[in-house]
């Protein structure tokens, strides 16, 4: 029996969960994130649960170090050595602009132009050498970049996905003069065509590699000082973990790992509640993250974009961030229409009710005025704003122009905010031909459970699943995460002509690579799981459709059949006239870790004998039908197996859960809430 820690560093809080399997006990910590050195917060969280590091068998860690470094541009100085004639690829991008309308806006590449040098070399699209590599030029360029003070080096050559020999040789040469190990070559990160996307992936990797390495060194040092002598596993954007000893080489894989761990927790929890198809919904202060899980497997994508001009085309859990959160600002536009978001009050000044100087009404303020959030709890935080002041502000900004009182204004904000969020979820999750009735909505994050039942009704999703500890879902995602490595190779050949031995050979090699890495990591895994996929298209198309492949020795006809069916489901089209192209092959090698019991997440000591024992009072709460006298219950005190009807407000330390009238709640054996939600309309 073992003690396992999952620890997730978020923007505001560092969350930690300690699973002591010997005694079936769970401890939880939540401490402020320490942005300058996240290790301080991690150690504080370990101290808070009172864990003895020497007794831990495994620590799994999700860090926002790399994502933040990229968004805040606190990155290492990188140099680029690239094919002659192409040093501006990273700056020119794919000829776009930040917004469809409006011709104002700017873009700064990760590597500024003076740090981008060219060397004579050239491959063609078939991988034939057109111009031999000028090895002296590589040496000179590397030395020049060292002299300019570069810490990290990118080597990115045209068509290296087809033939990487020049990149590999240039890397060897540069390594002779480079003062550290921070050299990334493009095809090692992404063996796919498209020079901008591959180059950005390599540049991202190089820009954050030293930052991640430094951080992990500090954390490992702190941990070993405290007596921890096992491996540290780091969460990746693909939803799996990797040994901290190896992760720096693939630093790009840790980008967006935070949202991925939330989706993994959703899949894990959902599977144990009998839900295979889930939409995960994590609502925070400024934005919300939406993920799609089908058949128990989170959807992955190789086409995510961190921000404008920063595509990250390594395989990742397909999480869509939508610009709506508790801090989304409501305003009246020039047409006299009420709008909510996408502008956000963020954490500073935050909603009006935080009392930090915010003057613009937000979704959180609306929830407070409507009694959906507890006024006593929120207004007491650190401020002098009274509920009356808040109501006056709502009337002045929103109510008067629309002829509404404070409650009317708040209700309008809530409904329009919910409509925007539902619309965004529909676009990312349901518009691709999925039937909402096949799904459950998994709500977490500080504000997810506050809106989930209303959103589900709006989307005709019949069930909402609210986990035991919605506020630490990402840490749970780390604790339960498997080890995972993804491999992608480009084929780009007509399916009818492609050499199937080549197809099978590529997948066999991908499997072998993954097996070898997992063996080298030495993590205790119970079994290896292999997921194969292909990206395909009809001949002449630009867009690809990703389809799952059942096995690594799948036949040509089966691939064709899977693609045809998937294409029909997505687009309602049969195109027998046109041939198909097998563009890429993808293998995920997953090392399954032992099952982690989540029932212990709820403290039985807090559980009430019956529902009445869980009730903490009543207050007036607004619902679409009007105000209702509503019971306020302590979520931790709900008895296992209890069933009850809404309306109700369930409060717990890390979130507030709204149960709308007509919803039916069941508390399952692990303490999760299953809420049956009638649709707001007939489908």
């Amino acid at each position, binding site marked *: 029996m073992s003690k396992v820690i999952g620890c997730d560093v978020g923007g505001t809080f560092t969350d930690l969960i300690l699973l002591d399997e010997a005694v079936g006990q769970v401890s939880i910590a939540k401490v402020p994130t320490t942005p300058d050195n996240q290790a301080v917060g991690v150690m504080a969280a370990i101290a808070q649960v009172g864990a003895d590091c020497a007794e831990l068998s495994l620590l799994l860690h999700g860090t926002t170090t790399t994502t933040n470094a990229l968004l805040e541009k606190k990155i290492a100085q990188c140099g680029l050595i690239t094919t002659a004639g192409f040093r501006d690829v990273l700056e020119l991008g*794919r000829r776009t602009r930040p917004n*469809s309308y409006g011709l104002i806006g700017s873009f700064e590449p990760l590597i500024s132009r003076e740090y981008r040098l060219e060397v004579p070399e050239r491959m063609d699209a078939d991988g034939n050498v057109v111009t031999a590599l000028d090895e002296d030029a590589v040496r000179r360029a590397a030395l020049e970049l060292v002299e300019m003070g570069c810490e990290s080096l990118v080597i990115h050559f045209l068509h290296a996905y087809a033939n990487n020999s020049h990149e590999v040789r240039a890397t060897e040469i540069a390594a002779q003069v480079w003062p550290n190990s921070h050299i990334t070559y493009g095809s090692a990160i992404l063996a796919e065509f498209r020079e901008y996307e591959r180059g950005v992936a390599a540049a991202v990797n190089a820009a954050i590699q030293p930052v991640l390495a430094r951080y992990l060194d500090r954390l490992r040092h702190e941990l070993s000082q405290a007596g921890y002598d096992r491996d540290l596993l780091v969460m990746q954007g693909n939803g799996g973990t990797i040994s901290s000893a190896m992760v720096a080489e693939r630093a790009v894989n840790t980008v967006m790992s935070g949202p991925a761990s939330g989706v993994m927790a959703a899949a894990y929890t959902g599977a144990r509640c009998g839900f295979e198809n889930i939409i995960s919904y994590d609502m925070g202060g400024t934005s919300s993250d939406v993920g799609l899980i089908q058949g128990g497997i989170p959807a992955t994508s190789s086409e995510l974009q961190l921000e404008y001009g920063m595509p990250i085309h390594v395989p990742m859990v397909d999480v869509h961030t939508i610009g709506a959160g508790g801090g989304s600002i409501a305003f009246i536009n020039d*047409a006299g229409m009420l709008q909510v978001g996408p502008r956000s009050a963020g954490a500073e000044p935050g909603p009006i009710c935080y009392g930090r100087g915010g003057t613009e009404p937000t979704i959180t303020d609306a929830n407070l005025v409507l009694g959906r959030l507890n006024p006593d709890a929120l207004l007491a935080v650190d401020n002098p704003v009274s509920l009356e002041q808040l109501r006056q502000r709502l009337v002045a900004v929103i109510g008067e122009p629309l002829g509404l009182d404070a409650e009317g204004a708040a209700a309008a904000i809530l409904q329009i905010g919910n409509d925007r969020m539902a*619309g965004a979820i529909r676009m990312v999750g349901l518009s691709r031909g999925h039937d909402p009735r096949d799904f459950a909505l998994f709500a977490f994050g500080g504000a997810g459970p506050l809106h989930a039942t209303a959103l589900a009704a709006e989307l005709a999703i019949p069930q909402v699943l609210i986990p035991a500890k919605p506020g630490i879902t990402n840490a749970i995602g780390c604790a339960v995460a498997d080890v995972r490595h993804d491999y992608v190779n480009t084929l780009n050949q007509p399916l009818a002509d492609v050499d199937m031995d080549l197809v099978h050979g590529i997948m066999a090699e991908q499997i072998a690579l993954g097996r070898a890495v997992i063996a080298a990591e030495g993590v205790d895994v119970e079994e290896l799981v292999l997921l194969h996929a292909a990206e395909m298209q009809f001949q002449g*198309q630009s867009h690809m459709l990703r389809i799952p492949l059942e096995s690594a020795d799948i036949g040509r006809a089966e691939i064709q059949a899977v693609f045809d069916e998937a294409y029909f489901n997505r687009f309602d089209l049969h195109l027998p006239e046109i041939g198909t192209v097998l563009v890429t092959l993808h293998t995920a090698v997953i090392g399954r870790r032992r099952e982690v019991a989540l029932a212990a997440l709820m403290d039985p000591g807090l559980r009430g004998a019956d529902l009445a024992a869980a009730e903490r009072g009543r207050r007036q709460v607004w619902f679409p039908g009007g105000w209702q006298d509503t019971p306020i219950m302590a979520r931790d005190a709900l008895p296992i197996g209890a069933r009850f009807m809404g309306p109700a407000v369930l409060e717990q330390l890390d979130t507030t859960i709204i149960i709308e009238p007509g919803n039916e709640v069941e508390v399952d054996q692990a303490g999760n809430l299953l809420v049956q939600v009638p649709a707001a309309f007939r489908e």
Partner: protein
Amino acid sequence: MSQSKAAKIDHVTLAVLQNGLNQVCNEMDLAFQRAAFSPVIAEAMDRSDGIYHRDDGALIAQGELGLPIFVGTMQFSTRTVIAQAKDLVPGDIYIVNDPYLGGTHLMDVRMAMPFYYQGEIFCWLSNTGHWRDTGGAVPGGFSATATEVEQEGLRLPPVKLYKGGVVDEEIQAIVLSNIRVANETIGDIKAQAAALRVGERRLTALLDRYGRDVVEAAIDEMRARAALQMRACIAHIPDGQYNGVSWVDSDGVVDEPLKIVLEIEKRDGDLYFDLSKSSPPCKGPMNSVIATTCSAVYLAMKHIFPEVPINAGTFEPLHITDPVGTFLYAEYPRPVSGCAAEVSQRIAEAVFAALVSALPDRLFAAPAGTSGNFALGGIDQRHDKPYVMYLFTGGGYGGSLHGDGLSNGCSTIGISTMQPVEVLEQRYPILFQEFALREGSGGAGQQRGGFGVSYAIQLRQGWGRASFVMDHGRFGPQGVLGGADGAVNKVRIERAGDTYIPLHLSKDQDIEVAEGDVIYVSTPGGGGYGEARLRDAKLIKRDVQRGYYSVAQVEKLWGENIPPDPTEG
């Protein structure tokens, strides 16, 4: 529109339905784009989907992901279809590409479908997609030297391609036997019709939920409010007259520049656009049909006020006098293939130039403003198959109060991405020798223009024919408020030891090239904003360090403002 109906709509329902109708269009846009074969639709997103009024085709809602130039055109073409439609039954879909009936150029093929709700036509759903080819003298349709529309391709009046949901094989056969790459175009036809059916399903669900009367009332109210919002934006412009001028290099046939003269009057809260002093109709394909001329004005206003939603109300305060007798009011059989891609951008440039003094914080210097269309056709000896490659490149955007212009931005009328060099080299027998930022091309100013692109393409084997439909070869994108113009577009071909430069600089057709020849293109930089002497010296130094400009260029462009040696310290 009836006030009494509008009054029944509450604020929440109105906002919800506005979002809901937009989403119907967005889903159509996505379905069309993702399933399309034409790279112009799939990659360049050269398509648009919308919902139109059943009586007059007035725009109700249009996808936010659609190509900007279509903001205004589709209501004109839908109106034409409605006027000519007869014997309608559910499942009918009209196809039309006649430019003179509310269109752009022949390649923009529109489909329009009556949408039935509870047995009655509630509205029309329409979309436009840029097909890869519609026949005519040159593959792709952009003939730089056409003098009649018949040379530009197959022209379809509104005809029912689908009757009661079933494709009319005979009409489809006529279409397919008059165009190139017919087999892939079948995929585009199906994708385009399927997108309309996606809209049909979503709109039915919306109506089921909210009811016909409520949705109708919301539509009326949204139109009124869009007009209100546009007028609130226009209110920032003081009453008076504003003039803008822009130039098209030539019409591709007669080597003379075409002038666009725009006079805008602001009075009584509305804007009046007069283009009647522009050049007369031209011989070559740079004539603009009225739908495109109007749409270019609407598009320019949307670029200035991006927050205004698009529906018929948005256009109510914008009054455009028909510029009869000019090249901006093309009539049959004037050739028009350049109107959507090039002339429309010059019209937008004139709008920007006219209004920049009134809205100096909103506006910007002129963007590169050309689609940079380069086509290369030949036989690929690797598989002995003919090919046609299109390359659309970007250029620099203009500086603004908010900063320097963007480099390699897409055309004013587009939102498209460029195909990667690696994809182009896979598909065609070419080798890029260079794809680079065009140094020195951004116009000087307090905020300089963004940079264009320089590329060089070598033909690796066989022979080919190169065609160009570009612009700004004679006149650089305008600088404003004291800023300098951006660099002009340049085309050059090195053929077996001699240099060929097109007579019309930016437009030419069927230039023969052979193995080893190299085509050089440099796209325009953006115009500068404000006087160069006001530029922050630190930024000038940075630009030299990055190699954006040489020391000599900086000295010439920024004069006394620069520090003694910008490369030092």
